[in-house]
């Protein structure tokens, strides 16, 4: 099965595209051209991979989870340790890639949106490293919930602008970043934090993260003498860590893939972020994809215990992989995710991010169906330090 999406027009099947005001069309065309040129340029790639090595700390380890494996007594479980990246999650891969591109394009003003603050911190970090001005838009309510990350960004020299419009969360921060962008198109580069937004962002962000899957192939070959696992798991909000690890395996039909999205209090309740489980196609933030919206097409508020999954949309490529059934998307509740946090902490001494815990929680359902000669790889997308406040509020010891 050959896989070479998106199309030239930025489509993954029916999803993706470029649904933006006219002002952004020339900007996106310029960006696409610059990205394609850079990605084909060995010097750019070397620069990118050098920074991933020297600054981010790549390659991240592929850790054999022996006690977690024993816990289920079935397939061998490996963890791809994105939690070991500088700043504590995979997000920095993309921030570094995009800031290099911004430099190449001569854009010296960086803006970004953030929900939980992880992408904001990654962008602020990259901007500090490059000595570039950075403005991060963040919902006023999220700023209250994620005070520590606000402080981190400020310490890194970034201006955090509170967003008080709409629901004061990630989707509104994204709206506000786009408003800034259309106003300052000449000198501003918008670093989007996930595989969402208008073409070429979903493709570009995926490609900056594909290093996760590429490393996994090599590392699995070294550890097990085979490049591909039988089962591949990742959590999905916008879906960048998942696309990063899935993409290099899409053509390997023997690899079963699972995207774990946030059910919140339950996919059948109003307090959910299970976009693919219950959403309908629509257009938000510049691309066609599944969305949570009401019968009038008004976007609904998402809910998840994990701020990073708390988004009413999803990357268009995931919508395609869902419809084409290449990836199984399953929703995991807040309570299940909390169990996932405990399980990984107690068996492996790794406190996962609440996002990652959604993937861990799915092991309960998957593992009994596996056999001892199979291999499971779980993308450990981030560490849980940032979530300790939420975790301690919700845990039963």
């Amino acid at each position, binding site marked *: 099965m050959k896989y070479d999406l998106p199309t030239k027009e930025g489509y993954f099947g029916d999803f993706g*595209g*470029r649904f933006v005001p006219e002002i952004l069309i020339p900007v996106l065309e310029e960006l696409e051209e610059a990205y394609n040129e850079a990605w084909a340029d060995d010097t750019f790639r070397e620069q990118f991979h050098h920074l991933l090595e020297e600054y981010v700390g790549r390659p991240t380890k592929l850790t054999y989870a022996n006690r977690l494996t024993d816990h289920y007594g079935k397939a061998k479980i490996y963890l791809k340790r994105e939690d070991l990246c500088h700043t504590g999650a995979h997000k920095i891969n993309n921030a570094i890639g995009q800031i290099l591109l911004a430099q190449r394009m001569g854009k010296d003003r960086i803006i970004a949106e953030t929900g939980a603050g992880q992408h904001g911190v990654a962008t602020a970090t990259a901007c500090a490293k490059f000595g570039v001005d950075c403005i991060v838009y963040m919902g006023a309510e999220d700023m209250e919930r994620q005070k520590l990350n606000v402080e981190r960004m400020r310490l890194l020299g970034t201006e955090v602008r509170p967003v008080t419009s*709409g629901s004061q969360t990630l989707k509104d921060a*994204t*709206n506000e970043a786009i*408003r800034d962008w259309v106003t300052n198109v000449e000198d501003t580069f918008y670093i989007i934090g996930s595989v969402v937004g208008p073409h070429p962002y979903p493709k570009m962000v995926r490609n900056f993260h594909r290093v996760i899957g590429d490393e996994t192939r090599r590392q699995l070959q070294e550890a097990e003498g085979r490049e591909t696992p039988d089962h591949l798991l990742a959590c999905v909000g916008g879906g960048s860590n998942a696309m990063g690890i899935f993409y290099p395996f899409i053509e390997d039909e023997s690899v079963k893939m699972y995207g774990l999205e946030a059910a919140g209090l339950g996919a059948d309740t109003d307090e959910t972020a299970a976009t693919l489980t219950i959403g309908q196609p629509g257009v938000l933030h510049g691309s066609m994809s599944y969305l949570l919206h009401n019968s*009038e097409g008004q976007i609904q508020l998402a809910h998840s215990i994990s701020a990073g999954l708390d988004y009413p949309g999803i990357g268009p490529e995931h919508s395609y992989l869902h419809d084409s059934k290449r990836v199984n998307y399953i929703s995991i509740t807040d309570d299940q995710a909390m169990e996932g946090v405990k399980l990984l902490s107690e068996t492996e001494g790794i406190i996962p991010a609440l996002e990652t815990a959604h993937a861990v929680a799915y092991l309960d359902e998957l593992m009994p169906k596996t056999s001892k000669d199979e291999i499971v790889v779980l993308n450990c997308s981030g560490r849980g330090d940032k979530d300790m406040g939420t975790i301690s509020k919700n845990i039963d010891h």
Partner: protein
Amino acid sequence: MIKTDNRISQLFERHEGSEKIMSLFLTAGYPDPEATVDLILGFEDNGVDMVELGMPFSDPLADGPTIQYSSNKAIEQGITMAKIMEIVERVREKSDIPIILMGYINPVLRYGVERFCQDAAKAGVDGLIIPDIPIEESGILSDQAEKNGLPIIYLVAPNTSDERMRKIDKASQGFVYCVSVTGVTGAREGDEVAQSVQRFIERVKANVTHNPKMVGFGIKSHEDAQRIAADMDGFIVGSALIDTIREHYPEQGWKDEVFAFVRDLKYGKR
């Protein structure tokens, strides 16, 4: 091709002399659905030539604070696509003022493109402006719009290249919406609009040759309009109108204040 009996094309055909065509943007359901009907009917008697009726969306990413506010208010008060169609029908019982539905694509998609175009045409809508549908994505809407005789009006911006302006001019029906400044919708200080606008207007004149040209974004007074639209067929005002409604609603006589503002926009203070 746009039909000859379309109210927008008739408006531009009929129009002569130096007076500029004035189109106003009003959020459907703001300040309330009843008032929207009354305002549009009253506009006609106060010099307004055309109305762009905004279909509110929860995430209006190309709009400034004013239209964000009116959109949210309208949604909170329960505006729906069906009610928007009703507003148009009720205006149509009494008036032939050209009405364009303007808004983001998502509520249209959710309502169903076919149903939307059929219902809009039946209600008496004369055209569509969907700012997040650039010409490349027009396929999602154009067949049904064409089938129901609804012209789609496209936008050009200050950073649109000459070549692209010509493409947009070809695709657009009714007129071309010229966005005078980069940025979101909203009233601006005169200088801010004046500085770069002249070069843009020159490029529009050279490249948009098939369609009438309407200029919008940032216009808040008669003087702004006369200066910016000097070489255009007309001008569009949205945020400044909604700011005026917001200032006076619901005090006694608020509509008269709004109509006075509208007259001043068109004719200047007299």
